[in-house]
C-alpha cells in the first residue's frame, strides 16, 4: 500500500516551463500547490557556472541535461506495419529532466502561432476547397483563436524576455519586423540582438530577392531586463553554448530564472524533486481525478498525493504517456480512427545549405540560441499561394549559425574525405569561412502518425513504454522540395566560393541525428470530445479537474518553434482555472 499524503488544492506534474507558470500562478491565487518533479533541483549558480558548463562533450555528445533513457524511453517505428524498437539513446529530440525541464537547455526562439494554425481546417477549406486537404490529413481547428491568445502571448514574451522587433503593431506594419505576423498590442520587451556577419549577408540577399527578412524573436536577452514579476535577466554574452546548455549569464529566458524561483518563494508551493509520477488516479465514477501516485526515486517508495486539481506539465511525450498509463480518455486507433489520446502526433521537417566564402570570417562561435535572420514569405504569409506547390503549411528560411562548437560544427565541402591530411586542411580552411541557410518546415497531422503504448518494452517502473509511429508524408516532401529550391536559389545570388546545396529529405524519419525537440500532439485540444482530449482551456473532456498543458495540445505542427504557444496556453489555462473553474467546478465547455 502506498503512503497517502494529505490532500492539497493542486498537484503539478513536472516543473519545467508550463509547470513553473502553473505553480507560480495557482499559488498566487491562494491554492496550496505540490509540484512533483522527477529530476533534481538545479540552480544556475551551482550547475551552469563557467568553465564547467562550457563542455561540449558532456552536454552535447553525452546530453547531460537530457532525460536519462536508461530509465524511461519510448519505442519508435515509421509505420504501423513495422515492429517498434526502443530509442536506446537520445538522438532526434532531447526531453529535459530536472527542475526547469527542457526550458533550461532550449534556444529561446519564441513565436506567435496565428489563426493560420489555430483555425487551419477552416482557413484552408475556405481558400482552397475541402478537396485540397488529403483524406488522411487529420488536421482540425484548435478551438481557440489568435485574438483570444494575444494577451497571453504577450504575457509569455514579457516573462521570458524576448528580444525582437514587432512587424505588425495593432495592424500597422513596422519596418524591420515580420510583416506577416498577426497584429500585436505591444512590441517585444527587448530590441533584437546584435547581428552576426551571416545574419547581415543573409539580410542583404533576402532583401535583394524581394523577401522580408527580420531578426528572429528569441528569449536571449539583448540587454539587462527585469520582467513584470521582478525577475532579472542579464545581457546575452553570445557565448555559443546555448542550445543544450544552461545559461551561466542568466540571459536566456528560462523557467529557472523566472517563474520557478518566484513560485518557490511562495509558502503555498511545495516542490518535491526525485518524484516520478507513474499514474493519475481516477475517481470511481470516472468523472474526476483524485490525485496522483509517484515514486520517490531516492528510496523507491510509492506515495499517493490526493489533490482537488491535477495539472499535467510533464512535456508532451510524458503527458501523453501518463494519460495512456492512467487510462484517461480513449486511446486513438488509426484503423477505425476512433479514440483521441495519442492522435495527431507531429514533428518538423527541415532542409539546409552550407555556403563557403573564401577569406570571410564568420566567427560562428560568437552566437546564441536564436541569433538568425528569418524570412516568413513562405509561411505565415497567407497571401503566398500554396496551391502552386500543392501543400498545406510550409517553411520559413533563415540564415545564421547558433554556435561553432567543434565536435558538431565543422562545415566542409561535401566531397571532402572523412579523415587524413586533406580532411584536416578542409576543416581548418572552412571552419570560420562558412555560413548556413536552413529551412524549418511544418508537419501536418496524419491518420497513421500517432502515440500509443508499446506491447513489449517497459521502463524501470515496469510500465509499458510509449510507442511512437511517425513518418513524413507526401505533404512534407512537397514542403521540403520547395524549401530546398528556395534556399538554393537565394544562396546562389550570394555567389559563394562553394556550396553544399540543400536537398529535400526523402528518407524516413530517423531517431538518430538530433533534429528538434518540437514534438507535438497526442493530447490535442479541440471543439468536442470526439475529436480531442481536452477542450479549448486544456481541461480534460473526461475528468474536469484534470488540466493538460504543453505542445501535446497542438493538433498539427507549424514551421515555428512551439514554446510561444506552449507558454501562452499555459497562462490561458491558469486564467481559466482562476477565473472560471475555482468558482464553479465542472466542465468549462459543455460537451
Amino acid at each position, binding site marked *: 500500500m502506498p503512503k497517502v499524503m494529505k490532500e492539497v488544492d493542486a498537484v503539478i506534474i513536472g516543473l519545467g516551463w508550463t509547470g513553473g507558470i502553473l505553480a507560480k500562478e495557482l499559488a498566487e491565487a491562494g491554492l496550496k500547490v505540490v509540484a512533483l518533479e522527477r529530476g533534481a533541483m538545479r540552480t544556475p549558480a551551482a550547475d551552469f557556472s563557467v568553465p564547467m558548463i562550457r563542455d561540449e562533450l558532456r552536454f552535447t555528445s553525452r546530453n547531460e541535461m537530457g532525460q536519462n533513457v536508461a530509465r524511461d524511453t519510448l519505442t519508435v517505428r515509421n509505420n504501423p506495419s513495422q515492429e517498434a524498437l526502443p530509442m536506446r539513446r537520445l538522438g532526434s529530440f532531447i526531453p529535459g529532466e530536472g527542475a526547469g525541464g527542457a526550458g533550461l537547455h532550449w534556444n529561446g526562439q519564441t513565436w506567435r502561432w496565428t489563426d493560420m494554425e489555430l483555425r487551419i481546417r477552416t482557413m484552408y477549406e475556405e481558400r482552397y476547397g475541402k478537396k485540397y486537404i488529403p483524406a488522411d490529413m487529420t488536421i482540425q481547428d484548435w478551438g481557440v483563436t489568435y485574438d483570444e491568445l494575444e494577451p497571453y502571448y504577450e504575457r509569455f514574451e514579457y516573462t521570458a524576455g524576448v528580444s525582437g522587433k514587432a512587424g505588425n503593431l495593432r495592424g500597422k506594419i513596422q519596418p524591420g519586423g515580420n510583416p506577416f505576423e498577426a497584429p500585436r498590442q505591444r512590441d517585444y520587451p527587448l530590441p533584437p540582438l546584435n547581428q552576426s556577419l551571416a545574419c547581415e549577408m543573409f539580410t542583404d540577399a533576402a532583401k535583394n530577392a524581394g523577401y522580408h527578412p527580420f531578426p528572429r524573436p528569441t528569449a536571449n536577452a539583448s540587454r539587462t531586463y527585469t520582467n513584470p514579476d521582478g525577475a532579472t535577466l542579464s545581457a546575452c554574452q553570445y557565448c555559443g553554448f546555448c542550445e543544450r546548455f544552461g545559461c551561466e549569464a542568466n540571459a536566456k529566458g528560462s523557467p529557472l530564472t523566472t517563474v520557478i524561483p518566484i513560485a518557490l518563494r511562495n509558502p503555498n508551493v511545495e516542490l518535491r524533486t526525485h518524484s516520478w509520477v507513474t499514474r493519475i488516479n481516477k475517481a470511481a465514477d470516472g468523472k474526476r481525478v483524485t490525485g496522483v501516485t509517484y515514486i520517490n526515486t531516492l528510496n523507491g517508495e510509492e506515495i499517493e498525493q490526493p489533490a482537488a486539481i491535477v495539472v499535467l506539465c510533464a512535456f508532451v511525450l510524458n503527458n501523453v504517456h501518463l494519460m495512456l498509463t492512467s487510462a484517461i480518455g480513449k486511446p486513438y486507433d488509426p484503423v477505425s480512427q476512433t479514440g483521441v489520446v495519442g492522435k495527431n502526433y507531429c514533428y518538423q521537417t527541415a532542409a539546409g545549405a552550407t555556403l563557403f566564402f573564401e577569406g570571410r570570417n564568420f566567427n560562428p562561435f560568437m552566437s546564441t540560441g536564436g541569433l538568425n535572420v528569418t524570412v516568413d514569405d513562405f509561411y505565415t504569409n497567407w497571401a503566398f499561394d500554396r496551391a502552386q506547390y500543392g501543400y498545406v503549411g510550409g517553411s520559413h528560411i533563415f540564415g545564421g549559425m547558433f554556435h561553432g562548437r567543434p565536435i558538431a560544427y565543422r562545415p566542409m565541402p561535401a566531397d571532402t574525405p572523412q579523415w587524413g591530411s586533406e580532411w584536416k586542411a578542409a576543416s*581548418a580552411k572552412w571552419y570560420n569561412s562558412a555560413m548556413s541557410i536552413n529551412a524549418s518546415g511544418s508537419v501536418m497531422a496524419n491518420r497513421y502518425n500517432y502515440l500509443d503504448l508499446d506491447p513489449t518494452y517497459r521502463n524501470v517502473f515496469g510500465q509499458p513504454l510509449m510507442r511512437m509511429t511517425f513518418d513524413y508524408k507526401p505533404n512534407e516532401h512537397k514542403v521540403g522540395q520547395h524549401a530546398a529550391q528556395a534556399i538554393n536559389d537565394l544562396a546562389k545570388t550570394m555567389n559563394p566560393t562553394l556550396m553544399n546545396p540543400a536537398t529535400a529529405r526523402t528518407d524516413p524519419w530517423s531517431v538518430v541525428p538530433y533534429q528538434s525537440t518540437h514534438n507535438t500532439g497526442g493530447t490535442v485540444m479541440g471543439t468536442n470530445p470526439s475529436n480531442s482530449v481536452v477542450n479549448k482551456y486544456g481541461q480534460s473532456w473526461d475528468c474536469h479537474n484534470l488540466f493538460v498543458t504543453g505542445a501535446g495540445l497542438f493538433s498539427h505542427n507549424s514551421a515555428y518553434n512551439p514554446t510561444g504557444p506552449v507558454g501562452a496556453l499555459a497562462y490561458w489555462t491558469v486564467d481559466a482555472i482562476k477565473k472560471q473553474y475555482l468558482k464553479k467546478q465542472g466542465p468549462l465547455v459543455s460537451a
Partner: protein
Amino acid sequence: MQNEEKKDEGFGRRDFLKSAVAGGAVAAAATAAVTVPQGAQAQPAGNGPAPGYAFLNLDEAAFVEALVDHMVPADQLSPKGTDMGLAIFIDRALAGGWGKGDRLYMQGPWKPGVPSQGYQLPLTPAELYRAGIAATNAHCMKTYSKSFDRLDATQRQEVLLGLSSAKITFADGLPVRVFWSTVYQTVIEGMFSDPIYGGNRDKAGWKMIGFPGVIANHAQNIIKYRDKKLPPNFVGIADMS
C-alpha cells in the same frame, strides 16, 4: 609542455608506452597547481594525460594508436593522433560511464530493426569497440596476414575505406556500420572535446580550426571582430579552474 611537434612517424607502440610514462610525470608536475574542475570526474587535468590504459589491452591499444595516427597524421596543422591524446581519450571514454553504457536503454528483447530506429545492439560502447577491433583484426589477418597496426599506410587506408563504406562485413555478424560510426565519433570527440578528457592535447584540435574554447564573452567581439579573425587565445576548462 610536451613536445607537440614530434613528427617521428616510426614512433612505435612500445616506444610510446615508455614515453607516456615520462610524459606523464612531466604532465603531473605541470598540472599540480591546477584544481580538477567540478564534474570532470577522474579525468586528468591540463594537457598531460596520466599514463597507461584503463580499458584497452595491448592489442587493442596498438589498433587504436595505429587508427588515430592514420586518421590524424602529423602535418603543419597538428601533431599526429596519439600525440594529440586521441588514444588516451578513447581509452578513458571506453573505461568510463559512457563506455559502460551510461544513459543507454539496455533492456531486451534485441532485434536488428531498421537504420531509422537507431542503436539496437545488446552491447555497451566498450563491448562494441572490443568486438569491432577483434573483427577488424580478423579481417586484416585474413586479407593481409597481419593485424591492423602492422599494415602499411595504403593497406590501412583500404581497411578504413572498407569499414566506412561497409564494404567489409564481419564474419561474426557484428554490424560494421555501427562499429565504424562509434569509432568515428570517438576520434572526432577526442580531437575537439575539452582537453580535460585526455584528447585535444594542448588544444591542438581547437588551434587547427580556430575555435577559442571556453572564453565565451563575445558580446563585444561580435561587433569588434565582424569579418575579422579573433586573435589566437585558446582556453580550456583546466585553464580557468
